């Protein structure tokens, strides 16, 4: 292993100065939401660690997670792949195919037993003996189990691996099953979203490499640093919600003024993600900023919560602030924040929401 070079070696050899290297470390710290005091720690980690092997497998999915990953701006995807990790198997990007690809997978598992990270994009279907998703002539679920056995930890990329996503929406014809229901004996980090934000994906990987430990997870297994708050909590349109200023119809005057999209079905109040803070594609925008409500794509079962244009609750029944607080309690209950009262409120609110939706439909 001694000939394996560190990030710092690689960066130095490609002509990056110590000064630029330190700047890079501070950007990484900023991306992770860490104080400047963490910069030397990051630098130290990068100077001393070899590139961590990563095996990236694909089940039933649409590849949006891989696409999102390569959008990462800080760090750049090329720097992750060339200098931070060793992506030894990824059927979407690797040069080899067929037998040679399978050999690359096997070699990595054997050489780095217990030391590689398994990244899973998509999920295994269990109906039809697993043959709704075939890799190398065999069910994908076999490849998943095989690669998971000697992994150090598993990252469940996106809504598919974390919760099932669209193919698991009712009636889930292939019995698409999230990773944690198939692999139960390994630490699993869920990074939900359809897809997750690019810098959240690279942020999770960089965190693990930098601090040599798994990120702090919430009860659902998501990194607290990125999924600890609701989109609504940090939404730049929140003042309009508080002031009772809402878009009433697409492209109306209020839409043009950037008012709150709550009445158009925005799921920001019940969705835990970093969209309103990190934003998308190098901070260019996020769904609400571009005029459409959040569809809640990082929440479990978001496909089966009624239409995306239904309100999450009825505003007319409560004062704005009290209503918002109740929604907050609901959401906290949904993610299992751990207080029994929240869960009770959640069940109550969920029942109320269903009956209200029904009433509106009728």
């Amino acid at each position: 292993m001694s000939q394996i070079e560190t990030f710092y070696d690689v960066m130095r050899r490609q002509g990056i100065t110590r000064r630029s290297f330190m700047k890079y470390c501070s950007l990484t710290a900023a991306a992770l939401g860490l104080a400047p005091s963490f910069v030397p720690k990051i630098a130290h980690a990068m100077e001393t660690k070899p590139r961590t092997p990563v095996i990236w497998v694909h089940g039933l999915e649409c590849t949006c997670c891989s696409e999102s990953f390569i959008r990462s701006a800080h760090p750049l995807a090329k720097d992750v792949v060339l200098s931070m990790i060793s992506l030894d198997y990824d059927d979407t990007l690797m040069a080899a195919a067929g037998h040679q690809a399978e050999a690359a997978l096997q070699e990595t598992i054997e050489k780095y037993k217990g030391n590689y990270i398994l990244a899973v994009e998509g999920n295994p279907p269990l109906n039809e003996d697993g043959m709704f998703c075939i890799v190398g002539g065999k069910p994908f679920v076999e490849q998943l189990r095989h690669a998971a056995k000697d992994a150090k930890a598993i990252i469940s990329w996106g809504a598919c691996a974390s919760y099932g996503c669209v193919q698991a929406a009712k009636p889930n014809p292939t019995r698409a099953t999230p990773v944690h229901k198939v692999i139960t004996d390994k630490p699993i980090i869920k990074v939900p979203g359809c897809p997750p934000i690019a810098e959240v994906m690279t942020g999770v990987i960089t965190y693990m490499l930098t601090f040599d430990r798994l990120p702090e997870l919430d009860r659902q297994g998501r990194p607290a640093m990125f999924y600890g708050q609701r989109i609504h909590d940090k939404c730049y349109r929140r003042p309009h919600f508080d002031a009772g200023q809402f878009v009433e119809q697409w492209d109306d005057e209020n839409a043009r003024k950037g008012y709150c999209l709550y009445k158009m079905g925005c799921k920001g109040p019940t969705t835990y993600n970093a969209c309103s803070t990190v934003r998308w594609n190098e901070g260019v925008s996020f769904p609400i900023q571009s005029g459409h409500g959040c569809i809640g794509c990082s929440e479990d079962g978001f496909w089966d919560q009624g239409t995306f244009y239904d309100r999450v609750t009825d505003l007319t029944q409560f004062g704005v602030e009290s209503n918002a607080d109740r929604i907050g309690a609901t959401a906290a209950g949904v993610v299992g924040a751990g207080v029994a009262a929240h869960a009770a409120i959640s069940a109550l609110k969920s029942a109320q929401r269903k009956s209200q939706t029904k009433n509106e439909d009728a």
Partner: protein
Amino acid sequence: MVVQTPNGFELDNSGKRIVVDPVTRIEGHMRCEVNVDENGVIRNAVSTGTMWRGLEVILKGRDPRDAWAFTERICGVCTGTHALTSVRSVEDALGIQIPDNANSIRNLMQLALQIHDHIVHFYHLHALDWVNPVNALRADPKATSELQQMVSPSHPLSSPGYFRDVQNRLKQFVESGQLGLFKNGYWDNPAYKLPPEADLMATTHYLEALDLQKEIVKVHTIFGGKNPHPNWLVGGVPCPINVHSTGAVGAINMERLNLVQSIIQQGLEFNRNVYIPDVIAIGGFYRNWLYGGGLSSQACLAYGDIPEHPNDFSPEQLHLPRGAIISGNLNEVHDVDPRDPEQVQEFVDHSWYTYGEPGKGLHPWDGVTEAKYELGPNAKGTRTNIEELDEAAKYSWIKAPRWKGHAMEVGPLARYIVGYAKGHEDIKSQVDGLLRTMDLPFEAVFSTLGRTAARALESEYCSRLQQHFMDKLIANIRNGDESTANVEKWDPSTWPKEAKGVGMTEAPRGALGHWIKIKDGRIENYQCVVPTTWNGSPRDTAGNIGAFEASLMNTPMERPEEPVEILRTLHSFDPCLACSTHVMSPEGEEMATVKVR
């Protein structure tokens, strides 16, 4: 055994069988088997879609206004194109007219996808079939710099020092012993023909393109809030326009428009200064490798896209052409009607579905499918450990769509052949110019290289079209029209009790259609026939082979156990398997009860 197919191919499965599974550097899961003769020439080809998700079953009973979000998740690589097709199908069914600005913005987004997808495909999924990054270590950076300046004088990143830095980085990467994505590649295979300097130049552009692609998609982020999977809206686009007044930060304002403009410019420059020159330079070294034409010289299909005016899909109003060519007759381009029950039909005799009645073809509005996973009597291995498939029986999760009974090729090459045959001025001048530069006859376009070149030309054309629609959007706003959505029929109570519609687009990979039936405000039936279903289709009832299979025929392999040539040709189609294999039926709920046999 030798079999003559109705579409003119002689299949001989007596030679050595080569299996490639997984086929990598594609979207989704795919398997390919070929038989090679004693000279290593492919004499039989079998292409198999190896995944299935059943999205249409899931769509049944849902709100048609939500369908774009579900169908968008068919594919995250061609992200947005299914969503656009979906909103078009709903608008067609309900007679919704979208505003002019919405048409321009949708086109800007769809064109951004074409450009992004083509660039990522060429550099990150396809280039390693032509380019050897390990060989790049032997390059002289100074000579590479000269090569770069010769093939593209306008590209600023061309100094010897620049290439030396990249080469050093590559060297350290290779010497680290952790080869990552390059592990187990075919780097000493004589199928790689580039000199080290061209390998270094192209590898450098692999990295430049990786940086650039994240810029191109920001057009989606601006108008749709994120990428992958931006947001869309039945009736228009969700982003309002407000360039003059208070609150403009919540809408498309001058700053946003300027950002779109700068991205269009970056795309255009990359296409002109890097992508097309690379294809010409790399293609020049492979100009004698003109295999892989397959169906392109006889049967091409395009639905057309990028309407100049909103709600007008007549062929003369589409910037990407519509038409069908059959029997290799470029003098006659047939119009395509997706509503005609006799034109587009799907067959399942060799697919893992059953219609209950063999030999039947069904139009998507009337489609019926029930999954039926079973291997043929001559397959080797077991049900859950397939060693060799039996192509005389069912062998793929992909159905076999046919146009008036013909197996068709779709995609950039099909669009360009249809456009050329119709005398489309922009397409014709691009194609003629490229052939002149490369000193090749027109027939050379019917090849793997032709497919790859058509994609590059189209990417540049799409950049110009983006500018056109950007100018159009600004002119329209200047004329006082800021409307982006038509909400007259937003409320389902305004809809007829029953309606049906079709949405068509040209996805980066080819002709894409969604067929929807709406009843009582809910989706009664939803069918997608997607590009890779056309290209990757298995044999049909009559025995016609599909475009992937046809394109592999008669290609010589340098080393049959190393599938460089197979990958090169399959990749030239940019296969998208998650798209192709999700197809499901109106009777689809049956599927939920399909169990282990």
